[in-house]
């Protein structure tokens, strides 16, 4: 990395009047600080370091896990799940219809009444602990399948998705016998049957976020994984089977939107939990309007990542890169709108471009890979169309030279400057490795721009000044605020949105409330 020169001008204080010759200054700056391109030649070539997948044996076909048994779908229909990095079929999975949904909900109801609500809370917790331990024992297999089915780099599935999923079960297992302390004097009680619909970006982790608190609080579950990434949820069902949970306590049914709609609309479901797009979230909220069902929604985002001039810039660059390119940007809380204080705008952009040029895109199973495959053809098309809109609306695009594999779905890391707040790339969730950069002059302007969105899931702040950091954090309308860090997650830390990013929290003591009735 080159040694960074600070801009050679007296940095204007936030809120101060613009410098006297603002029009000429950027040009002078560019001359004074000559951009040093990174050129490592062949020194940064990496030998492939693929994770071996030999010992992972996928079945050719997966049935539905209902009432503790693997059952063929009533429709007899199956669909393929493919690897987005090779476009090869990995397995076929059952397509559950309304009859299967009904069977699964019935099994969950029976399990709730017969077993799960009758168990001693500590025993309920012990089953959930078992799941956590079994995930740890099968961590390698789960990570490999997660990367094969979803396209994410193995270093992420191995170091983040799978361990965090195990940690989530472990954390909530311990709450099972302590609920009366979590809500002292408020008589916490389970809701009954939970219908849970999860997305394709963190397939196993989202299953953990849904199942762990629901089970610990005494509910039984019907889980529907996303149609492009069903495999780790099915492996999790296998783990749950091996853990000897009472039959029907967890049911996993695969399928597409129609299956999910049948599940959330089922009359005997007491609780609906959904993670996914704001669009679908609104449809679910509408579908259950007027019913007694409890609902939590974890929806889209368009997070602002705010960099002040006094930020520790090198750490900020790493945080920005991780904030947007983690999991190919398929992250609801991705820092997709970068707001940079004008005084450091040029230097931040140059550093970002340098850093982006070092990102390695390719085989998700290669341990060196930073950016894996886009999850599906459909998602790739959506990213392409939004990026095209960015170009046609006049923003300036930067994409580093980046070899794209011949097969599979890929999108190179991309950055837009010259973005205005009205551009689609500044308003809509792209859910891909695309960063839109805007600038600001004062903390007030940064807050106003950050909040100028229908979303409110997360935000980032980079500054070395503690009081400013808290001042901004208090004013951001977002459920999770990362100050001098980004994209950190922990089972003990509540996660969830403001505004159209949904409601309810996952994680922490607050996450229990999504699955409890309290006085």
């Amino acid at each position, binding site marked *: 990395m080159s040694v960074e020169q600070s801009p050679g001008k007296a940095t204007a204080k936030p809120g101060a009047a613009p410098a006297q010759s603002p029009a000429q200054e950027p040009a002078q700056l560019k001359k004074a600080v000559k951009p040093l391109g990174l050129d490592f030649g062949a020194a940064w070539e990496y030998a492939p370091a693929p994770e071996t997948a030999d010992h992972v044996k996928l079945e050719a076909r997966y049935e539905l896990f209902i009432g503790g048994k693997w059952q063929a779908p009533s429709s007899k229909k199956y669909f393929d799940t493919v690897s987005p990095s090779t476009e090869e079929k990995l397995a076929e999975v059952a397509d559950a219809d309304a009859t299967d949904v009904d069977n699964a909900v019935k099994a969950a109801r029976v399990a709730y009444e017969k077993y799960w609500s009758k168990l001693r809370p500590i025993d309920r917790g012990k089953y959930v602990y078992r799941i956590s331990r079994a995930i740890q024992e099968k961590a390698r297999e789960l990570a490999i399948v997660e990367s094969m089915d979803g396209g994410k780099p193995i270093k992420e599935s191995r170091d983040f998705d799978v361990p965090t999923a195990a940690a989530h079960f472990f954390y909530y297992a311990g709450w099972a016998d302590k609920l009366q302390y979590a809500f002292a004097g408020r008589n916490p009680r389970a809701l009954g049957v939970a219908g849970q619909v999860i997305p394709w970006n963190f397939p196993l982790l989202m299953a953990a976020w849904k199942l762990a608190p629901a089970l610990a609080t005494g509910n039984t579950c019907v889980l529907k994984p996303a149609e492009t990434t069903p495999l780790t949820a099915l492996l999790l069902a296998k783990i749950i089977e091996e853990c000897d949970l009472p039959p029907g306590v967890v049911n996993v049914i695969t399928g597409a939107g129609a299956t999910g709609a049948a599940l959330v609309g089922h009359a005997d479901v007491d609780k609906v939990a959904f993670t996914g797009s704001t669009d679908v979230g609104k449809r679910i909220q509408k579908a259950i309007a007027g019913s007694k069902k409890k609902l939590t929604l974890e929806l889209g985002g368009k997070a602002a990542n705010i960099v002040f001039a006094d930020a520790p810039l090198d750490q900020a660059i790493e945080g920005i890169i991780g904030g947007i390119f983690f999991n190919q940007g398929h992250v609801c809380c991705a820092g997709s709108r970068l707001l940079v204080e004008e005084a450091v705008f040029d230097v931040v952009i140059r550093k970002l471009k340098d850093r982006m040029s070092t990102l390695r895109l390719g085989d998700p199973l290669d341990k060196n890979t930073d950016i894996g495959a886009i999850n599906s053809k459909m998602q790739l098309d959506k990213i392409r169309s939004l990026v095209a809109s960015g170009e046609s609306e006049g923003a300036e695009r930067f994409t580093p030279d980046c070899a794209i594999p011949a097969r599979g779905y890929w999108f190179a890391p991309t950055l837009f400057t010259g973005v205005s707040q009205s551009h689609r790339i500044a308003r809509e969730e792209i859910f891909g490795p695309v960063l839109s950069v805007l600038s600001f002059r004062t903390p007030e302007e940064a807050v106003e721009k950050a909040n100028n969105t229908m979303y409110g899931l997360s935000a980032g702040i980079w500054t070395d000044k503690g009081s400013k950091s808290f001042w901004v*954090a208090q004013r951001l309308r977002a459920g999770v605020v990362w100050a001098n860090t980004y994209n950190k997650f922990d089972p003990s830390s509540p996660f969830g949105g403001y505004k159209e990013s949904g409601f309810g929290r996952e994680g922490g003591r607050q996450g229990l409330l999504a699955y409890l009735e309290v006085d």
Partner: protein
Amino acid sequence: MAKKKDEVGQAAESGGASNPAGGPAGSPENGATNGHSNGVNVGERVPVRKAYKLYLGGAFVRSESGRYTQVAEGPGLSGKENVSRASRKDGRDAVKVAQAAWEGWSGRSAFNRGQILYRLGEMMEARKVELIASLEAGGQSRADAERETHASIDRAIAYAGWCDKYQSLFASLNPVAGPHFNFTTPESMGVVAIAAPARPALLGLLGTILPVIASGNTCVVLASEADPRTAIVFAETLATSDLPGGVVNILTGQVKEVLPHLAKHMEVAALDLHELPPDLRKSVEEAATINVKRVRSRDLGVADWFDAAAAESPRWIERFVEMKTIWHPAGQ
């Protein structure tokens, strides 16, 4: 105002002896006692009547629609009093002022919000004769009106105390597995639209408003249709309690006419619904999806509102807060 209060009080006293249920007191022939039902008694003072207007942005205004509904002046009294009937446009105006008031109200210290709600309790205590008289005029017996008013004042005091305490109960310091300081705190949501219960008209109104504003939300309330006048008499205590204008906005009129528009208003963050007919509740909840409103519905019986332990639980505050989690690295 004082004169009118006396009148209602007298009427109630004269009627109350023979009719403790607070039903129609007296007959047209007793015009001599209430002074103005029949004919004019030359020489007796003519009382001043009051217009019951909407409470909007800290001011009392008539509906922009010019419409009104009428309520009886009191049990057994033939006089009619006019209460504004809010329109959809009044609803929009109310949201606008509530939205404008939110930043200031939520930005005040919790201690200050507590003081203002306590001040509300003081104002209600001072004006309780009027509140009791209004409830009585709205159909309650004297004893019930007194009981409800006293419970309402106590509720204001209970929530005044909650303003700077619920945070400690809802917040958490989260033991994340890494070198980070991580905590979660509650924040207000914004503008909450409330459909207050029909009965108890005053206690139900307090019971819906107080938990919403204690945490810094502002609100637009559709008052009880069974006794809209009491809501406006109560608004007079709000107006004198140092509560900034716009924090509480009270509309009288028809819930089914105005609520659907509040439900689809993009500046309304949440709905607090009471006793809606199933059809209306469903359509309102559907409309609320436009901006993913937080919708809370509860149907409590009258007795539930008088159960102080249940009605003053922090759970009612918890329904209208967002939890914000903040991460910061701990390092050198």
